[in-house]
């Protein structure tokens, strides 16, 4: 009897130590123990005594030996009480069963030391199964519980060293192995029960796919003809080389990278003021990809370019990466808080973009899922403690586009002058009122008057003598002038950059942050902040890195690789050397996965910003590691990686598969890549392609943001900036300037081109790991009804008629440009029938010219009076060169434009297969 009881207790204790205690720690202790001053319902689960005692209800929570009578057990089953309260935290049936067994075993409670002894004994005990999980050594959590917790091995895969796997040999069709990628893919397909491969994509499909993937544009009919005419072996490889060597390659790569870094030309929040020099970082990214800068170097420059070489302009531009987040400091914000906001943003952002680790969770507590203690978070944050903002004076490089500055500057200046003209009479009126006031009282100066005869406040103030509306207008004009003055900084040779130094006492909305003469001194210290709150600092930390990362060579302990100096300079360089290293188990995997995603729509790890426990698991872990090692060995070259992927049979296969019904049953998500996953054009690809097809695209590279015509209602929508309204959005003056690639369109955080927005261009506040691809009706309005779509169709038609005299030729060219293939005979007939019908209509209906808006009615509620102030804003469109408009052309052009509009709305155009 005793013996039996003893053994029950022993196994119950083991259950407690290995399973129950970690379960309580994860699911219950955050509210019932972690903070003794904030116990929910007064229930404390940290000791057996308090656990048995129960909470405010004063009933025992656990009745040892009697699970059914234990409120704790009832609560976790959501029987009466519902604990944990959050649906997604609910215990699994297995976990509930564990608790039942443990209570049935008498709810034994091993004390801390006992528990640790047992943990140490585990390796010798030999009967611990893998499902108990593994511990991970870190710098240590806030509780021993967290420090010693266990992780499912597959949940911390990304912290395991990258090892080159053996290449599998179980191919479905060995003749279709063009490179080793195919060996890995075929092995998984075979394992998944797939019997045969999709056939190779035909040449027309392939050139369209490859060109969209690398350039974000459709191939031209001439490019298609040349490719089809190349009958020698290796034509596809040569096509890929041509595409990689073209500067459009860098633009398309930049678009993907800027999604990750949340690029914008403005700061967000209440004023959304311009970052006038941000465009130089955007162009730096384009240059870097075009030059095929090794990725490890690219990362290092963005993290610590200024430390690498403070005299190299390119390096000072590159660190703009660290300032990409939304950030604003005004008179209404608190400096300590906005500073912390920057530090939190940059810490999290470096984790997400380069390491696929969302670190923000660890700003308030040890990470709930991943082996990232809050100490590591603040150690990483301490790396950025010396970072101060600066708009360094950095001469323009020969490779930067500083063309056309004079004209662009003149437009901004003319708006400022116009505001000046509007303000002048108001100032004159006020001055006259002041003179009159003094004259009435027979004095020359205000100070000659006794205090009680002066205006309220003792002086005139700037708006003396003006009525309330006039006072509001003075303010509105002044704010608009300030706003526009900032735009002039675009053309100055400055960089959105930073330096290392002591706290730069930044004021609000400074146009330019400068480097002080002396940047040396005491660097702000960083402490662990309880709950992420500045008001609750715990212990101080020194700069450091993710302590769970052992490194590829499996060496633990401080090395030159994972040590950050506690000096002013050199912290970020140490971070860069740690990240951009073959030793780092995350970096190469993360970028290889991002590039893979560009080609297959989904990464090998579907959550490309999260390689943690809550992220997706790799569908092809061996392939991912093989690619990562290959990438490192081939000099971190992104172009080589594209070349490798695009020359694989996997990439070159068709989007259709003969056994599609069976495949859908096996792998409905196509994770195995049994066929090429088709994708919809991204927002920018859609706009750029329409301009390219219509013959209007200006494919100039680089330079400050441009302003295309967007929906006028959105353009003229007043945007609130503190106490006033921002000046109206005004499109660039010529079609040539407006029809630049979308990458170069000025990117506001609070004003979005609806065409791009409805086609899933993400906002720029949080990093976008992958574009959504929704199908919603507003997309129809944007593509079928918008001015943009109608103008492109009209230019498209006018160009076709200019170039070709016969209808058949016009339609053939239209199909080639839009779909990359000639039309069928039936399609030509359908188009002709439609054209004739439309021609009859357009001959009967002549469109009336519609004028551009030249002035807009503005209104806002004035905070000084609580009343609506209305005024007119003149739009500087006097020299505006309009697009081709329907009243400029013959009915034949308008009729053909209807056919073109239909083509640009069709699925064959919108999807890449």
């Amino acid at each position, binding site marked *: 009897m005793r013996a039996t009881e003893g053994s029950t207790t022993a196994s119950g204790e083991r259950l407690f130590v290995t399973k129950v205690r970690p379960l309580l720690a994860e699911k219950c202790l955050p509210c019932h123990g972690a903070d003794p001053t904030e116990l929910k319902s007064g229930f404390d689960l940290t000791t057996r005594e308090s656990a048995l005692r129960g909470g405010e209800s004063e009933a025992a929570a656990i009745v040892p030996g009697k699970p059914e009578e234990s409120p704790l057990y009832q609560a976790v089953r959501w029987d009466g009480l519902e604990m944990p*309260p*959050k*649906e997604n935290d609910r215990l699994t049936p297995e976990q509930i069963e564990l608790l039942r067994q443990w209570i049935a075993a008498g709810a034994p409670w091993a004390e801390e030391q006992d528990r640790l002894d047992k943990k140490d004994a585990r390796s010798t005990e030999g009967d611990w199964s893998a499902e108990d999980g593994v511990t991970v050594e870190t710098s240590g959590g806030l509780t021993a519980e967290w420090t010693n917790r266990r992780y499912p091995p597959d949940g911390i895969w990304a912290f395991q060293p990258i090892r080159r796997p053996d290449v599998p040999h179980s191919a479905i069709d060995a003749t279709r192995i063009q490179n080793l990628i195919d060996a890995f893919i075929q092995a998984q397909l075979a394992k998944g029960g797939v019997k045969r491969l999709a056939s190779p994509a035909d040449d027309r499909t392939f050139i369209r796919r490859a060109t969209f993937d690398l350039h974000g544009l459709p191939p031209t009919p001439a490019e298609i003809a040349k490719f089809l005419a190349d009958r020698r072996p290796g034509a596809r490889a040569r096509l890929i080389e041509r595409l990689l060597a073209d500067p459009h390659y860098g633009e398309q790569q930049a678009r993907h990278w800027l999604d990750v870094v949340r690029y914008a030309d403005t700061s967000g*929040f209440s004023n*959304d003021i311009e970052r006038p020099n941000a465009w130089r970082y955007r162009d730096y990214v384009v240059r870097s990809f075009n030059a095929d800068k090794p990725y490890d170097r690219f990362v290092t420059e963005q993290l610590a370019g200024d430390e690498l070489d403070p005299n190299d302009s390119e390096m000072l531009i590159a660190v703009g990466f660290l300032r990409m987040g939304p950030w604003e400091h005004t*008179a*209404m*914000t*608190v*400096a*300590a808080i906005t500073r912390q*906001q920057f530090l939190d943003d940059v810490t999290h952002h470096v984790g997400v973009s380069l390491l696929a680790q969302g670190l923000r969770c660890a700003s308030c507590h040890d990470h*709930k899922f*991943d082996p990232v203690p809050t100490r590591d978070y603040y150690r990483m944050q301490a790396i950025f403690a010396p970072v101060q903002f600066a708009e360094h004076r950095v001469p323009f490089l020969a490779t930067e586009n500083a063309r056309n500055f004079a004209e662009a500057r003149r437009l901004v200046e003319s708006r400022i002058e116009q505001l000046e003209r509007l303000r002048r009479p108001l100032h004159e009126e006020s001055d006259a009122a002041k003179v009159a006031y003094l004259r009435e009282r027979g004095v020359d100066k205000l100070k000659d008057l006794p205090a009680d005869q002066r205006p*309220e406040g003792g002086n005139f103030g700037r708006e003396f003598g003006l009525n309330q509306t006039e006072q509001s207008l003075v303010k509105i004009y002044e704010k608009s002038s300030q706003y526009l003055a900032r735009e002039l900084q675009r053309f100055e040779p400055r960089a959105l950059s930073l330096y290392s130094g002591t706290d730069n006492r930044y004021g609000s909305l400074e146009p330019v942050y400068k480097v002080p003469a002396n940047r040396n001194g005491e660097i702000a210290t960083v402490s662990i902040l309880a709950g992420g709150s*500045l*008001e609750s600092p715990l212990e101080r930390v020194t700069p450091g890195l993710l302590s769970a990362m052992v490194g590829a060579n499996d060496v633990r302990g401080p090395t030159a690789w994972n040590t950050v100096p506690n000096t002013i300079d050199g912290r970020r360089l140490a971070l860069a050397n740690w990240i951009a290293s073959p030793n780092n188990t995350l970096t190469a995997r993360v970028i290889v996965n991002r590039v893979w995603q560009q080609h297959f729509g989904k990464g090998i790890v579907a959550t490309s910003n999260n390689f943690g426990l*809550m992220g997706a698991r790799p569908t092809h872990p061996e392939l991912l590691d093989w690619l990562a090692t290959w990438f490192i060995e081939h000099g971190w070259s992104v172009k080589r990686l594209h070349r490798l992927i695009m020359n694989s049979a996997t990439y070159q296969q068709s989007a259709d598969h003969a056994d599609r019904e069976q495949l*859908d049953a096996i792998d409905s998500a196509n994770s195995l890549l049994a066929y090429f996953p088709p994708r919809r054009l991204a927002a920018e690809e859609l706009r750029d392609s329409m301009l390219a097809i219509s013959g209007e695209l200006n494919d100039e590279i680089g330079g400050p943001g441009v302003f295309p015509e967007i929906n006028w*209602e959105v353009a003229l929508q*007043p945007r*609130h900036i*503190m106490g006033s309204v921002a000046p109206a959005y005004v499109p660039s003056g010529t079609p040539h300037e407006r029809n630049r690639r979308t990458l170069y369109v000025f990117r506001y955080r*609070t004003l979005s081109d609806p065409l791009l927005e*409805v086609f899933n261009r993400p*906002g720029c*506040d*949080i990093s976008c790991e992958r574009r*959504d*691809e*929704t*199908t*919603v*009706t*507003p997309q*129809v*309005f*944007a593509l079928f*009804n*918008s001015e943009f779509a*109608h103008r492109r169709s009209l230019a498209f038609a006018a160009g076709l008629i200019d170039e070709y005299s016969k209808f058949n030729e016009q339609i053939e060219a239209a199909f080639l440009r839009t779909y990359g293939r000639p039309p069928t005979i039936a*399609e030509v007939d*359908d188009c002709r*029938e*439609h054209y004739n019908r*439309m021609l009859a*209509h357009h001959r009967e209906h002549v*469109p*009336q010219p519609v004028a551009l808006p030249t002035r807009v009615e503005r*209104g806002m*509620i004035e*905070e000084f009076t*609580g009343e609506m102030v209305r005024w007119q804003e003149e739009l500087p469109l006097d020299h505006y060169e309009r697009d081709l408009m*329907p009243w400029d052309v013959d009915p034949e052009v308008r009729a053909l434009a*209807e056919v073109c509009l*239909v083509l640009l*709305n*069709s*699925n*064959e155009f919108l999807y890449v297969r």
Partner: protein
Amino acid sequence: MTEPFHLPRRDFLYSLGATLGTVAFNALLQAEEATAPAAGPLSPKPQHHAAKARSCIYLFMEGGPSHIDTFDPKPKLAELHMKEFRRDNKFQSAMSGGKRYYVNSPFRFRQVGKSGMWMCENFEHLADVADHLCVYKGCQVDSVDHPTACYQMNTGKRFGGDPAIGAWSTYGLGTLNQNLPAFVVLPEGAFPQGGAANWSNGFLPAYYQGTPLRPGGSPILDLNPPAHVSREVQRANLDMLATLNEADRQRHPHHADLAARMEAYELAFHMQTEVPDVVDLNREDARTLAMYGIGQPETDSFGRRCLLARKLVESGVRFVQVFEGGWDSHDYLARAHSARFRCIDQPIAALITDLRDRGLLDETLVIWGGEFGRSPDNGVRGGGQNVAGRDHNAKAMAIWMAGGGVRAGHVVGATDETGAEAVEVVHHVKDFHCTILHVLGLNDNKLTYFHEGRYKQLSQTGGAVITELLA
């Protein structure tokens, strides 16, 4: 010229969703199959628990209306008026440190309704519906600047990028009219500080984003083609498009997105005629227009939006948010706040009365409030007695709720003797958010979405329902 094509309707319903679905579509489905519609992202979903309110009208007073001058009188301030004190610490903005002066309220108060709740005299009409209001004085937020406080009040998070309450609500409940946006925003003209991020879908799918209906022009962007394009031409183009798309679909029969996109074009075509009717105020009778103050210069703008909010809710829109700014009275409190009162007083009273008379108040939650309250003092903007205003205050504010599920005719919570800080029934805004969801039949802990490695929720990390506010 072409046969209408037939599609497997159920298959593409999910991918269709849209900010705007269609009544026509549901009608089609019912007529053809007489079965329950399949689940799309915006089709109605059951509440987590039984709750009366089915929809919500949130009157958002951007800028921070003063609780001290509306629902929370502080006689103590008469004694302290223009007395100086200092407040300095590093957690204050440049504007809120240093020398400050207490400011007495320029408004007079009286008790109204059966409960005898205090209300500023300038609310002449609102007093008549006081028995429907549940005034709450215990809410606190974390931010003292507008955009981050607006983001927190609307999304739970201070720094933007999270879904708004309206987005969460429609994610949880779907919407009742597939032909209208599920979540409609009625801005005053200028967008509020922080812009569209105040009604963002955040990390939720785009279906749940708030749709701003503009005071002029087309209610939905590009709802109609350019002026010279006739409906006849549109129809012909649609038929031509269907021909091309159908041929393409037959070549790629397994690509489900193709069918969804084809159907979206037909839906859009129907919506062009149906949507404008719902937003047309000309169909309302003169008495209704007058009741909302439409036609009167001060009340016209806000009155129109209140009436539109009622019409939208009546038509099955799940969540309507009306933005009204101008409350940031750092100076000229008396003048600026009284002008604001005149703009909103009659329209709000009309809205509540109208909802009640139509039997809609029981199933609608009405919320009034700003992003924070105001301070008992003038901050550091200085100025004499006549120009005095109030600074921002994250620690105290006044909010009221009315309608289904709310404890009507009550005042809950209280602030200290100067109105500087809430001291009774004090809750962080996350609890207020849980309460809103609760009244709409949603449980914040169940209304979660997996993003960036965790299940996120409106309250950010969980909160509690403020039971004192419930009927």
